[in-house]
């Protein structure tokens, strides 16, 4: 651990304000998501704890606001602040799990395509090319309308959209890695292919993935929010930040702006934080920018 604090990475981190802001935002969100729900009095999805009399209360600093509901309430009397804490949980869960799944599938396919080449490579990469020629939200929309809605379906749609970047990156690095003599040396030593891929190629192609994976969490949070806003995302019983925006959107122009603006600000800060930190990682881990 001491060596980490003495490392060039940490030195540059301390000097980069965008990295500090970005990681601070990410850490606050992680904290809010993990312990937040225990800090608020109301569980917005426990119907028994709701009171319709509390509906459409404005934020506490406006006339009619109450300290009990710092960011106001929605039409069902749900605390917007509590809803954001619960909703960010679902948004981040979807973003992270879909990222891990995409990364795994994309890396495996990219390694196979790069290492074996030939027809396998052509098939995998043509599928990737075709996918990349459509906007990812369109593919996700299409898949969601085919398989139906739900958190698991959103995960499937995001993974189907997200593996492509990993596959292309990993294939490219694999192609340049297997030209290196240590891979030849491993073959000459009699190592079977799966061991060469796992022990020699994989560790050497991982670095660029860290950046892609970080930024992709932000992208996935946004895509999920768009899907939910369009009504094909998560179910109403498990509202993500996107669904909160949609719920508030109906009354946005009646002057009840807080129900959708605050969840929107939350998404913005989350994605902003992830992108700031991702940019810093990209600068740090890309040897060509050094």
């Amino acid at each position, binding site marked *: 651990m001491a060596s980490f604090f003495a490392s060039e990475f940490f030195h540059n981190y301390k000097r980069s304000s965008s990295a500090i802001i970005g990681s601070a935002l990410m850490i606050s969100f992680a904290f809010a998501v993990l312990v937040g729900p225990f800090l608020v009095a109301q569980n917005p999805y426990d119907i028994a704890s709701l009171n319709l009399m509390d509906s459409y209360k404005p934020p506490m600093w406006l006339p009619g606001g109450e300290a009990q509901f710092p960011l106001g309430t929605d039409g069902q009397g749900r605390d917007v602040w509590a809803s954001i804490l619960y909703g960010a949980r679902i948004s981040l869960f979807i973003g992270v799990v879909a990222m891990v799944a995409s990364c795994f599938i994309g890396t495996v396919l990219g390694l196979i395509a790069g290492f074996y080449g030939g027809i396998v490579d052509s098939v995998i990469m043509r599928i990737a090319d075709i996918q990349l020629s459509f906007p990812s939200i369109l593919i996700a929309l299409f898949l969601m309308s085919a398989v139906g809605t739900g958190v698991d379906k959103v995960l499937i749609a995001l993974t189907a959209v997200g593996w492509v970047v990993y596959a292309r990156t990993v294939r490219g690095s694999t192609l340049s890695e297997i030209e*290196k*003599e*240590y891979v030849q040396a491993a*073959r*000459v*030593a*009699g190592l*079977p292919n799966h061991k060469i891929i796992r022990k020699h190629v994989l*560790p*050497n192609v991982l670095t660029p993935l860290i950046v892609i994976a970080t930024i992709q969490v932000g992208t996935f949070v946004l895509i999920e929010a768009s899907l939910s806003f369009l009504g094909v995302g998560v179910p109403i019983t498990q509202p993500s930040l996107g669904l909160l925006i949609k719920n508030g959107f109906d009354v946005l122009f009646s002057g009840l702006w807080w129900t959708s603006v605050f969840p929107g600000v939350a998404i913005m800060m989350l994605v902003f934080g992830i992108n700031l930190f991702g940019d810093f990682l990209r600068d740090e881990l890309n040897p060509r920018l050094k």
Partner: protein
Amino acid sequence: MTKADDHPLLSVRNLRTYFHTFSGTVKAVDGVSFDIGQGEVMGLVGESGGGKSVVGFSILGLIDSPGRIEDGEILLNGKDLVTAGEAALRDIRGRNVSMVFQDPMTSLNPLHTVGRQMDEVLRLHTDLDARARHVACIEMLESVGISRASERLKSYPHQFSGGMRQRVVIAIALLARPGLIIADEPTTALDVTIQSQILKLMRQQIAEKGASMILITHDLAVVSEMADHITVLYCGKVVERGLTRDLISAPSHPYTRGLIASIPDATDRQDRLSQIPGSVPDIRNLPMGCNFRERCPRAQALCAQQEPELMPQHGSLRAACHFPLAPGDTA
């Protein structure tokens, strides 16, 4: 010296390795034969693009598409490697035949410690337990001249200098006690001052372990120090072979003489270094007759019509030339 014909460790017979590309078939290795006896060092010499490395990879069965071994036999201890399956070949690689590469900067995985990369070979090819493997690694590192071996096992490749890395690569190649080591330009990427150390080390290690070696190089000065006998390749074909002293002192093929003449000589100060005129012909589109005739000072009409066969010459030499040089010939 052991007689090569008695029980050759490796016998390559009429090997043809072709690469089928869109712009034509590249006959990288075209009818090459040679024998290596137990404990012998054979130099495989030629210009770049002459098919030297392809011979090495053919022996290991590591020719990638679009390349293919079209014909020939590669007998290792009497067992044919061309017809052997992938599983059998994998067993032979590293255990019976291993390889030392040109560039020690890229032939070690930058992310694993030296110890781990050595251990991998032993785990694959021996039944030793972890303790015994560790001891074997330390002994091997010490025998290639790396001090504080047990500490150095924990080091990463970037913590070694180029010469040290090549010592590690040699240690890895020797680890499973293979009978044959293929060294593909093992000193080309090294500093001249390190070259002779590494060559001496390889020579000594091979003698100690009773292994044989194919030394692939373009550098005749290196081979003349190391090899028992030399095979000269040109455009994928053997143009001359023989015992090192015969071949170096009085080559009979004009190409070999050209290679020897192009070694700079410190005692004989010339204005220009001597070279072989012209360059290697397009290997996809070789001319009729002798491949070397367009660069050869002795070429005559016959050379354009008929390809020369490998014929016995003076001493131990065999050369493929219609007008071979006799000892003392200058023109």
